[in-house]
């Protein structure tokens, strides 16, 4: 049973990411989208939490939302995979369930 977790809130505004990282289990997938993509950037104060999670969970970020915010995919944390909407659909299909942390 694999679950895709989606986080669409900035970690500097809401605790959605923290809740997601706390409750999600090893082997799951986490997609950062909308303001959630800020958590994918290097040098923030949630970087270590994201990196810790990446030891047992696969983290993705929605490319169009990185671009919309004027951020660069060159500055995301190593190991985070950037996907587009087609990739988002594929992740929703390949995982058994989708849980949105709103």
């Amino acid at each position, binding site marked *: 049973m694999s679950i895709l977790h989606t986080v669409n809130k900035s970690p500097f505004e809401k605790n959605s990411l923290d809740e997601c990282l706390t409750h999600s289990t090893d082997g799951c997938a986490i997609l950062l989208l909308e303001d959630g993509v800020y958590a994918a950037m290097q040098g923030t104060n949630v970087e270590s939490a994201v990196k810790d999670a990446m030891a047992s969970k696969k983290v993705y970020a929605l490319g169009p939302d990185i671009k919309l915010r004027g951020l660069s995919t060159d500055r995301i944390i190593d190991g985070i995979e950037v996907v587009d909407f087609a990739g988002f659909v594929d992740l929703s299909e390949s995982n058994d*369930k989708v849980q949105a942390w709103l």
Partner: protein
Amino acid sequence: MKFAIQINEGPYQHQATDTAYHFTKSALEKGHEVSRVFFYHDGVYNSSRITTPPQDDRHIVNRWAELAEAHSLDMVVCVAAAQRRGVVDDGEAERNGKDATNIHPAFRISGLGQLIEAAVEADRLMVFGD
């Protein structure tokens, strides 16, 4: 694969209805089925046909309507959320004694049971919003 979509956020509020739109469009382009799009909470505002954004901005309501027409999407607006927010169709106007309607014909007003049914019947329920 069969997807059901739930939208909890109004248009031009943040980004959820845009994300939901692009996800739905992408899923349809990939050959998946979208069995229902359910508009809940402030999401009901996505169905107002009198929405008039600036000309250089996306028209979120018409965009949904066009996608629905192209793919025969069932777009359902929660009745209780709609009543609270003044989103009205002919039936609701008559039932509640209102002098106007504002829902776009691409949408229909129905109950929460439609969300439950969609969630049960679809392979995945995708939730967008706050």
